[in-house]
């Protein structure tokens, strides 16, 4: 069973993510966090929802820090915890330096250009299955 975590504060982007996920995977649980702190808190406490990692859709511009800040904190989690998550960065950034830093980050599995669409969520899920 797939489950999703959306770290995003723009209302419209949350709405789109929810719709797209619900359309593709109506039964999958989706959690929304509008701050990095809340997301990290929840992720470090959770014990995983089974043998498939949760898909994390991460925005770079969060009110309490950038997505890079999230990745730094994520880095400090135990390996076992980290393996419970499949991190996908979803951003409107055009900044080459920023994008290549993301692609070079070992915890980031994919970097996608906003907005989320049905097609993009399909590629995410394909990538997740390919890895397993």
């Amino acid at each position, binding site marked *: 069973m797939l489950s999703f975590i959306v770290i995003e504060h723009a209302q419209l982007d949350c709405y789109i993510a929810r719709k797209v996920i619900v359309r593709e995977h109506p039964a999958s649980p989706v959690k929304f966090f509008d701050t990095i702190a809340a997301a990290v808190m929840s992720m470090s406490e959770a014990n995983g929802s089974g043998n498939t990692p949760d898909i994390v859709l991460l925005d770079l511009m969060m009110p309490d820090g950038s997505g890079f800040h999230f990745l730094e904190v994520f880095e400090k989690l135990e390996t076992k915890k980290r393996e419970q998550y499949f991190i996908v960065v979803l951003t409107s950034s*055009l900044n080459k330096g920023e994008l290549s830093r993301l692609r070079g980050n070992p915890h980031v599995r994919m970097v996608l250009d*906003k907005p989320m*669409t049905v097609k993009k969520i399909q590629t995410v899920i394909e990538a997740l299955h390919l890895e397993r």
Partner: protein
Amino acid sequence: MEKKIQILYVDDEQDNLTGFKAAFRLSYHIYTAENAQAALSLLEKHPDIRIIICDQRMPQMTGVEFFEEVRHLYPLPIRILITAYTDIESVIGAVNRGQIFRYIGKPWYDVDIVSAIEEAHKFYLASSMLMIKNQELQLAYNELDKFAYSVSHDLRGPLSGILGAIELARDIEDVEEMKELLNLMESSVFKLDDYISSMHDYYSSRRGELKVMDIDFNAVCEELQEIYGVYISTNKIRFNVSVDQQETFRSDEFVLKMILNNLMTNAIKYQKKNYHDKSIGLSIVIRGGAADIEIRDSGIGIPESHFEEIFNLFSRATSHRAGSGLGLYNVKGALLKLGGHITVSSVVDQGTLFKLMIPSK
């Protein structure tokens, strides 16, 4: 009258120093030094020295050697060497290495000195201007970098949201669902629009010259009430205005209104949702050739840790409301142009108070 050009003359012979000073003190402000050390300490004390004239033959150090040293410490003043023709070889080398702007043969004539000084001064002005322009250019580049960065987030962010919404809308049949989506799209459009108009304010206030005129603050406030009246009353915000103007106040009306509009918009935008006693207070007192303006709101407030940075370009204390990070930056820039300043005090969840002082022009 324009200030006299400041000139430093270095020569080990006291007679030459006295003679030089006597000949030119009416036209220029002359400093004299008997050796390199004295010259350096004068340069340190008087950063306005624009031209250095130095004799080549000095006991401890030649003029060329002195200039070599000065060039690294004080690159701006223009260097002129006075020398007898016997030293010509070393002088040619120095000129070619760019250490010397001109040389004057010994014995010198007043007219040669004057023409060398005038030419040197023109060169000084041109290269100082170039340096200032370079600094401005560097600043502009830095801003452009920040702007390019914010383009992807502040312009592209809302746009990509709208694009995603359109994509979704193709498959939505339900009218209520569609309305919900439209509302969300609308607020993204507002965000974009807000950003663009702040950008416009930014560039028009930066580029334009001030147009100073008599300001009637009562009229300015009436206009504010006209602009924001409907919005304020539909959102149940109390708006108290008081103006105390007994004297004329001169300033640039466009810039002044831009400042007030930005602060008013913030006071409205950052109100607490569903709070029962929303209020905005605007008080303006003109006294002693200055305007003291206070804008107080009962909004969400700003954490003290953000007080410094809210006036920076593209800085946002909160991401929970539409905003470009340009508003207060524009306010600060505009106040700088008017010669005024702004301070902020705020308590989170209780409200914010902006205090402005603007001198009359």
